[in-house]
């Protein structure tokens, strides 16, 4: 097991370098004129262009730029964004917010999806099953660009149940609505996967045993079937993080949460190489950790899976 960890760690390091390289390359490939992108539609005076080009090594070849970046990174310096802010500082601000948001979103999603998934698996084709199907479909057919403002309009502006926007140092309460919107991205998949998985496991022999033990259906399903059904769901949680990040691009904008998604879009839009790579590095680490946890969870959920 220890060896497993060491191996994963080594893999993680390689992945990290691979990912930063790829992202750096992508950013580079995508670069047309970062300074103009930064300036938006304003014309860029020649002297400014010159000074900034020099400052950010923009006219160096790709490998050299990557080299500068990595050199900084290895000494713990994430560099400065093209907006002249230390990237580390931006991350310190953005990550906690986004992690909080994603965490709430995932919890909401899992709670709803797993509960509804189980119920509809038990009563396949029943009223509940069909109702959830319709609701899921409605959510699916609304892109997040539609859903987020709509939710904001209804719950934040009209009904005023929750704050309309969240802001930088928002409390948990303010994050509830954006989290709900975010979670809608992944609920559909999780719900239906749970449903399929539970339905499959309901037909196992051990369910019969559990019932023969005189256990109530609640327990048979909530304990025996659920644990056997959780592997795909747990897997989804791991990858859903990616979907949440993608969704955060819109949601964070709509609810004014200066989180990772927003920083990334800004970085991508302004062709801010160091900024994007900095955030993606951490993102990749997050994925590495999350997927390691997911892999370990497999082993927790199903003891037949062993890692050497």
């Amino acid at each position, binding site marked *: 097991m220890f060896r497993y960890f060491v191996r994963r760690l080594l893999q993680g390091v390689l992945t990290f370098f691979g990912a930063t390289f790829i992202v750096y390359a992508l950013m580079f490939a995508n670069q047309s004129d970062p300074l103009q992108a930064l300036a938006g539609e304003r014309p860029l005076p020649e002297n400014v262009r010159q*000074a*900034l080009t020099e400052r950010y090594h923009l*006219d160096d070849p790709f490998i050299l730029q990557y080299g500068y970046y990595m050199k900084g990174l290895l000494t713990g310096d994430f560099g400065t964004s093209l907006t002249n802010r230390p990237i580390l500082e931006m991350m310190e*601000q*953005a990550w906690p917010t986004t992690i909080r948001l994603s965490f709430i979103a995932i919890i909401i999603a899992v709670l709803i999806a797993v509960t509804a998934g189980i119920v509809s698996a038990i009563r396949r084709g029943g009223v509940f099953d069909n109702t959830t199907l319709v609701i899921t479909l409605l959510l699916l057919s609304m892109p997040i660009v539609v859903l987020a403002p709509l939710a904001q309009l209804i719950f934040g502006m009209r009904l005023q149940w929750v704050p*309309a926007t969240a802001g930088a140092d928002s409390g948990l309460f303010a994050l509830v609505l954006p989290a709900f919107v975010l979670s809608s991205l992944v609920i559909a998949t999780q719900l239906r996967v749970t449903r399929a998985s539970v339905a499959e496991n309901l037909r196992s022999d051990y369910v019969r045993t559990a019932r023969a033990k005189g256990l109530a259906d609640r327990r048979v399903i909530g304990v025996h079937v659920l644990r056997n059904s959780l592997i795909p769901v747990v897997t989804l949680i791991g990858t859903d993080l990616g979907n949440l990040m993608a969704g955060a691009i819109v949601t964070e*904008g709509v609810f004014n949460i*200066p989180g990772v998604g927003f920083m990334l879009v800004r970085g991508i839009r302004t062709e801010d190489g160091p900024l994007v790579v900095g955030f993606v590095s951490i993102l990749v680490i997050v994925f590495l950790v999350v997927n390691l946890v997911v892999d370990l969870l497999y082993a927790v959920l199903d003891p037949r899976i062993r890692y050497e």
Partner: protein
Amino acid sequence: GGGGDETEAADAVISIGIGEPQHLIPSNATESNGAEVLAALFSPLVDFDADNKPYLVAAESVESTDNKVWTIKLKDGYTFHNGEKVGADNYINAWNHAAYGPNGNGGSYFLERVEGYKDLQSKDPDGEEGPKKAPDPVAKTLTGLKKVDELTFTVTLSEPFSGWRSVMGYTTFYPLPAAAWQSEGVLKEDFEQAPIGNGPFKMKGKWEHDAKVEVEAYDAFPGDKPKVGGVNYRIFQEQTAQYAELMGGGLDVVTQIPIENLASAPTDLGDRFKTSPNSVFQFVGFPTFQKEFEKVEVRKAISMAINREEITTSIFRGSQTPATSFVSPAVAGYRENSCGEACTYDPAKAKAAYEAAGGPKQIKITYNADGGHKAWVDATCNQLKANLGVDCVGTGEPKFADLLTKVENKEPVGLIRLGWIMDYPLMENYLGPLYGTGGSSNYYGYSNPEFDNLVKQGSAAPTQEEAIKLWQQAEDILARDMPVIPLRLGQNVFGHSERVKNVEVDKFQKVEILKIEATS
């Protein structure tokens, strides 16, 4: 949030929505968010009245006999928020820093006209052999800036310019305190995080990036006192979020209500929904490298086939107005419909003229997709399709930079969408950058020596009136050549909460910070 019930209205803290400023160094704050905050922290030499005429604020007098050497006398009694007295040196040092090329200040080009500006720049030596390090410029200070006494200094321009007084109203020209400097000509690293100004408000804490900038009234300010105790500039990523927050009760002022909300805003806000003119000018340009748009008749026909009125009412819900001139009404010298017939909607005539001139069968309008332009571009295209019987497509490029790249590569982009906000209220600020040969925003490559000449003459004219006359002549050339199609003029469409009153937004899209008041 706004002021509590208990506090006096004058001590109330109000909140204004802005986007994340790019910089809070005056010479580098070239976009409206930074300018908005700095306007509270700094007091300009001159400001503009309702007729776009400059009036003195921090300056006692601004005089010139030849429009070349300008003597600026400062009012006594102004201090920076750290107690330093404001003097001539504060201006000279700030401006030198602004102009010095390697500092890369976005606003440095405002100082272009000052004598010695060229020596502060260096040529990029990048060439065949790849990038090289640029040599240091030959000078570090502008020869055109001279201190006369503690409160007086002179500015010498390389050429006479009658509009200089107006130019100095811009953000770049704010002074900087001694405390701002690390060493001579080098700003402190974190000065930007809590700028010290000479204005009615001072920073309260630091600039909290992507969250807020808080300012509070500066008691020792000698000028007009603000009517509120402080302003919380709350930073939003999207304008829709600002509006949502206004509706949700968490924000007091939204300076630009997004189109999406325009349908409901008047009813949502009632008399707190307001409009005022600003300097935004929207147009499409014809790239000169595309042969099919070579003929003026074609360009005019296209312009005539566009129903501006319909678009401003149906798409923009009245938040913009049709443009029929090549400059904005925000500047003196603006004439309505200087474009003439070409900007008057006449589909029949347009079609006839278009066919006669043999215009292209397909028209493309390229725009940047991140700016919310799709709706009106599509609508314009639909009009062109219907009115000219051509095929018209709007093509979105992800970013404005991409659009520019395509133009630079001379790709067949078709009509390109452009917009302009003025730096200072002079006709010249539209004519020069937009239509002058090599103008900073003349992306489509229009070049007419006669026009350039007239603009130049206007700038050098001894009086404003004469200048305007010459500039208007230049504008007439544009009407003849039709290098662009003027489309729309912007308006500030803003709204505020019940906690504030006397909210006004100026032509630079800034809230008039000295006028706004809290309702008690």
